[in-house]
C-alpha cells in the first residue's frame, strides 16, 4: 500500500496552525480591522514579471473564459478599500506557479492587511506587535530590529545598492567565492541586487528577532510609493526572522496614472522575458481613479511564520499535504 496518503506534518503542527489563526483573528478583532474574503479565481491578475500564475478554464458552452488563480488578494482588497471598507484583513490561499522548494509551495496561506491612515512607520510598529503577540507562546524573540535597505547592504557587503557599479558588485561576489554571479547578472542592476541580497545579506537577517528592512530601491518595487525625500527609494518594507523572508508591505500607491504606467512597464518586461501574457486589472485602475484612501498594507506568509514558530527546516513540516502530496 502506498504511504503518501499521509500528511507530512505531525498532529501538533495542525494544532499550531489552528491556534495561530485564532490568535491572528483576535489580534485584528481587538483593533477593529474587518475580516474580508475576495475571489481566488479572477478575470485579471498581477502583472509582476517575477510571478507566474495558474490559469483555469471557465466552461459553460458556448462560453469559454480563461480565469486566473490570484498570486495575492491585493487588487481585490484595494477595490474594497476604494469602496470605503476601512481597514481590512484577509487570511486566504495564494497561488504562484513554478515556485517549489524548502521555503516555497505553489499554493500557500497568506495573511494580508491594509490600514487606512497608517504610514509605513505605523505599519512596521503593527507588524512587530503582531509577530510578538503570535509568537509569545512558542518563542521568545529579541527586540525587533529596523534598518534601511541601504544600511544593511553597506553593513554586509560594503556596497551601495543605489549606485550601480558592476566592477564593485562583481568584486564582492568574487571575494565571497561566487564568481558565477557576474555571468549571471551581467549589467542588470536589479538582478545584482536580488543576487547579493538573497545570497549575502538575507541569510543573516533577524537572528531570533523580527528584522524590518525598509526603503527598497525604486527599481525593485511595483506598487509602493516613492519616498518624498529620496525618490531613489520606495516606501516598502520586508519582514525577516532567522533569515527567512516572511512578508512584504507598502505605503500604497494610490495614483491611478502612475499605477497604469507601472503596469504597462511590467507587461512590457514580461513580454521581454517571454512570460505568459497577463490581463491588466482595469477594475483596479478604475478603483484607484475613484480614489484609494491613504493606507499602508502588508502580506505575511503564514506557512513560513509557522515554520519559524516551530523551528522547522522545511515547509512540509507545517503544510499537511505539500505540493507533491496534494
Amino acid at each position: 500500500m502506498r504511504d503518501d496518503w499521509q500528511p507530512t506534518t505531525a498532529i501538533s503542527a495542525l494544532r499550531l496552525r489552528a491556534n495561530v489563526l485564532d490568535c491572528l483573528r483576535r489580534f485584528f478583532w481587538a483593533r477593529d480591522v474587518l475580516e474580508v474574503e475576495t475571489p481566488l479565481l479572477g478575470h485579471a491578475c498581477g502583472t509582476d514579471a517575477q510571478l507566474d500564475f495558474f490559469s483555469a478554464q471557465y466552461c459553460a458552452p458556448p462560453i469559454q473564459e480563461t480565469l486566473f488563480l490570484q498570486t495575492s488578494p491585493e487588487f481585490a482588497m484595494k477595490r474594497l478599500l476604494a469602496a470605503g471598507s476601512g481597514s481590512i484583513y484577509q487570511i486566504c490561499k495564494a497561488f504562484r506557479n513554478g515556485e517549489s522548494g524548502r521555503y516555497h509551495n505553489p499554493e500557500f496561506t497568506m495573511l494580508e492587511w491594509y490600514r487606512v491612515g497608517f504610514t509605513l512607520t505605523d505599519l512596521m510598529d503593527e507588524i512587530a506587535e503582531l509577530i510578538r503577540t503570535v509568537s509569545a507562546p512558542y518563542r521568545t524573540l529579541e527586540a525587533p530590529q529596523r534598518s534601511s535597505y541601504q544600511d544593511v547592504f553597506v553593513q554586509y557587503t560594503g556596497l551601495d545598492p543605489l549606485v550601480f557599479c558592476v566592477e564593485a558588485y562583481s568584486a564582492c561576489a568574487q571575494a565571497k567565492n561566487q564568481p558565477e554571479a557576474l555571468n549571471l547578472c551581467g549589467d542588470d542592476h536589479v538582478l545584482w541586487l536580488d543576487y547579493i541580497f538573497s545570497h549575502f545579506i538575507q541569510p543573516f537577517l533577524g537572528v531570533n528577532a523580527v528584522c524590518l528592512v525598509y526603503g527598497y530601491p525604486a527599481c525593485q518595487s511595483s506598487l509602493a510609493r516613492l519616498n518624498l525625500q529620496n525618490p531613489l527609494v520606495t516606501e516598502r518594507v520586508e519582514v525577516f526572522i532567522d533569515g527567512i523572508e516572511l512578508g512584504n508591505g507598502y505605503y500604497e500607491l494610490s495614483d491611478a496614472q502612475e499605477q497604469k504606467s507601472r503596469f504597462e512597464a511590467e507587461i512590457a518586461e514580461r513580454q521581454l522575458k517571454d512570460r505568459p501574457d497577463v490581463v491588466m486589472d482595469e477594475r483596479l485602475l478604475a478603483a484607484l481613479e475613484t480614489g484609494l484612501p491613504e493606507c499602508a498594507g502588508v502580506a505575511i506568509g503564514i506557512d513560513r511564520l509557522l515554520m519559524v514558530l516551530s523551528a522547522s527546516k522545511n515547509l512540509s513540516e507545517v503544510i499537511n499535504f505539500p505540493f507533491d502530496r496534494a
Partner: protein
Amino acid sequence: MAVYSTNEFKAGLKIMLDNDPCAIIENEFVKPGKGQAFNRVKIRNLKTDRVIERTFKSGESLEGADVVDVEMQYLYNDGDFRHFMMPDTFEQYQCDQKLVGDASKWLKDQDMCTVTLWNDAPLSVTPINFVELAIVETDPGVRGDTSGGGGKPAKLETGAVVRVPLFVQQGEVIKVDTRTGEYISRVKD
C-alpha cells in the same frame, strides 16, 4: 545526452559542469517574493570528489552526464592498472591506479565492488561496505585480555592497516567497515 533544467535538479542527478561530470547533492530554490528566482546548488565533482556550491538562474539548464554505477568483480593488479570484470558479460575494464585511490587498500582479488563509469570509462571505484580480510601482521596479544581496551595496529592482506582488539591474532580473518576503516568483528570459519 539529455538536458536538465534547474527545476529538475535533485540529489543524485549527474550533470556536466565546466566539462567535468558532477553529481547534484542538494538543490535549494531561492526566491525573494518580489525578485528573481535562483537555484543554489551543492555539487560534487566526480573526478576530484570536491564539493562546490554554484548559483543558477532558475530555469537554466545543464547537459546530463553519462555516469553509471556498475557492480564489477575485481580481478588483479598488473602494476600499472587494476582490472575489473562485469560478472554477466565478462567484459573487462582497466582502471588507472590514481582513479582507484584509497579504494585499493580494500580490494581483494575476486571481490565485488562498484565501478563508476563515465562515457563507459572508469571514473572511480568504491569498495563494498564490509570486507573480510586476513591479518598478515600484528603483535601477539596479551594473555587474558578479552575486550577492546586500546587495541593494536594490524596489517591486512590488501595492505590496509586497521586497529584491532588485543586478542585478535595474526592469520585470523576480520570484518572491516570500508567507509570508516574500523574493525567490526572476527570472522569464524
